[in-house]
């Protein structure tokens, strides 16, 4: 029990740190993240630049903080959209005709064959790169995760006595879904959201690393890492700073998901959801 809550605390703290960095960056950053200061080129960590400066003399910490915004924005929108579409689909798949459920699950299998990054590359070829494309691609590829989790949870709830009683009492399916099924799968949805968020962060970082995410003037962790690649000789720190940020954020959401799973539903089978990455 103590280890479980440890997972939750560590995960929660890491996530809180990322959120805090993003929120604070709206009102304060040590320097203007876009300010080019030639004499500070590749400056090491100092009182002026806590995490040093990049190849243009821009403050690394400021860029890291503003980058957290990009990360969270993409995560929130893509996971939100995926949940909004995936949860109703999962409920429908569990509660209506069996053949419809089967078809929906086959479709979700099919969507899994299009990983987020591949989808984003394809969309970029057509519409050009951008944050919105990244969010759409990650969102679409995350829908199956929600649909599957909600379906399997809902199927369990459907066989419970209180649902059978509600059906016998003549409640309409929509009423049963909203009143009995949805509240009982909420914990599953929350856990899935946390794990999906970690996956979304990875996908966003990969896309901006490839130059397909946020535009160059918007700081993002993936792009910071990509820009550091040519400077590994002079300043390996520039790779380590955004790299650690990505890893800690992903670790945070993964641990938070694990911790929440244990907290919200101890009976739940350990269902590691990195599969959809």
């Amino acid at each position, binding site marked *: 029990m103590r280890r479980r809550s440890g997972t939750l605390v560590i995960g929660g703290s890491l996530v809180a740190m990322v959120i805090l960095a993003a929120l604070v960056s709206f009102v304060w950053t040590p320097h203007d993240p876009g300010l080019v200061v030639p004499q500070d080129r590749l400056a090491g960590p100092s009182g002026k630049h806590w995490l040093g400066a990049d190849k243009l003399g821009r403050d690394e910490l400021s860029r890291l903080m503003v980058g957290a915004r990009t990360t969270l924005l993409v995560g929130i929108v893509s996971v939100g959209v995926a949940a909004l579409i995936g949860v109703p689909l999962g409920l429908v798949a569990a509660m209506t005709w069996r053949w419809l459920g089967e078809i929906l699950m086959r479709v979700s299998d099919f969507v899994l064959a299009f990983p*987020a990054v591949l989808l984003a590359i394809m969309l970029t070829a057509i519409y050009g790169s951008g944050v919105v494309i990244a969010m759409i691609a990650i969102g679409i590829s995350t829908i199956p995760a929600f649909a599957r989790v909600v379906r399997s949870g809902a199927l369990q709830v459907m066989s419970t006595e209180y649902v059978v009683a509600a059906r016998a009492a003549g409640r309409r399916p929509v009423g049963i879904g909203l009143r009995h099924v949805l509240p009982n799968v909420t914990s599953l949805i929350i856990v899935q959201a946390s794990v999906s968020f970690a996956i979304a962060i990875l996908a966003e970082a990969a896309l901006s690393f490839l130059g397909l995410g946020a535009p160059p003037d918007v700081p993002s962790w993936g792009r910071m890492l990509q820009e550091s690649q040519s400077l590994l000789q002079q300043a390996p720190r520039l790779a380590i700073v955004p*790299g650690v940020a*990505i890893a800690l954020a992903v670790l945070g959401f993964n641990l938070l998901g694990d911790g929440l799973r244990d907290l919200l539903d101890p009976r739940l089978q350990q269902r590691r959801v990195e599969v959809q990455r």
Partner: protein
Amino acid sequence: MILRLLSRLAVLVASLAVSTMVVFGFMVVLPGSPARVALGVNASDASVAQLEQEFGLDRPKGVQYLDWVGGLLRFDLGRSYVSRAEIAPQIADRLQVTLWLVVTSTVLALVIAVPLGVLMAVRHRRASGVLLSALSQVGVAVPAFLAGVLLVALFSVRLGWLPANGWTPPVEDPAMFLEQLVLPVLSLGLVQGAVLARYVRSAVLDVMREDYIRTARAKGLRPMRALVRHGLRNAAIPVVTVLGLQLATLLVGAVVIERVFVIPGLGSGLLDAVANRDLILVQDIVMLLVTAVLIVNFVVDLLYLVIDPRLRSVR
């Protein structure tokens, strides 16, 4: 058994058919024509019309679709809008490169994950098991491209042991090939290994609670021996599933890793095609990658039947 096989095959064929429509559909909804995209906004109408005529882009969309799918079935992937070269031979070369990456890193991931996962499960109550488990959690959080950059920083830049990037075909210079293969494969394999190890751990933990393991122990088998003789085959089912599902991840990882290490594989080809706005090439490579994922899912389904005889009679 046969019925199950046939139904899976039908799903595969249907999925492939739908994928062609999805991939083609994405390219068709494009405002304007692929020729305009390839030539840029400043191209004259005449040159756009000429390119459209050359590649048959002025024909009805349905005809273009059937033509494309017909070509795919004959391994004729058309010609590039930009270089006008035949696409199939180019892609074949790149596919080889990517296959080297994906296959060797999958092997590495398995070599890491199976012993590590079993160890983590057997020792899950001891400090060493918990520590390994925590380490694997960190491994899961590190994307392959980050691992790649960090490995280059350490082994190429700092220590100078291995080349930072590049690719030499194995027939040209086997030693160089291996040297250049090490870091990309480590980047992909270590990360996949960490993810996979966590599944192996939970699968083995599940199996260890089974009655037949207790029976084996009661017969006097030592824990490890009971596990190896009775448990591993059962634990393999969820692990094979994950391995299959991870192929999609691995392919995407390879796309990015090829960028990090300047490797001329499918991923680099895809990104170059996007940069050149060569839509037919994008379409072909995406289709190829999706086909690979779908076929692997199909193979994973077949593997279930091999591993678990119980499934053969179901449905």
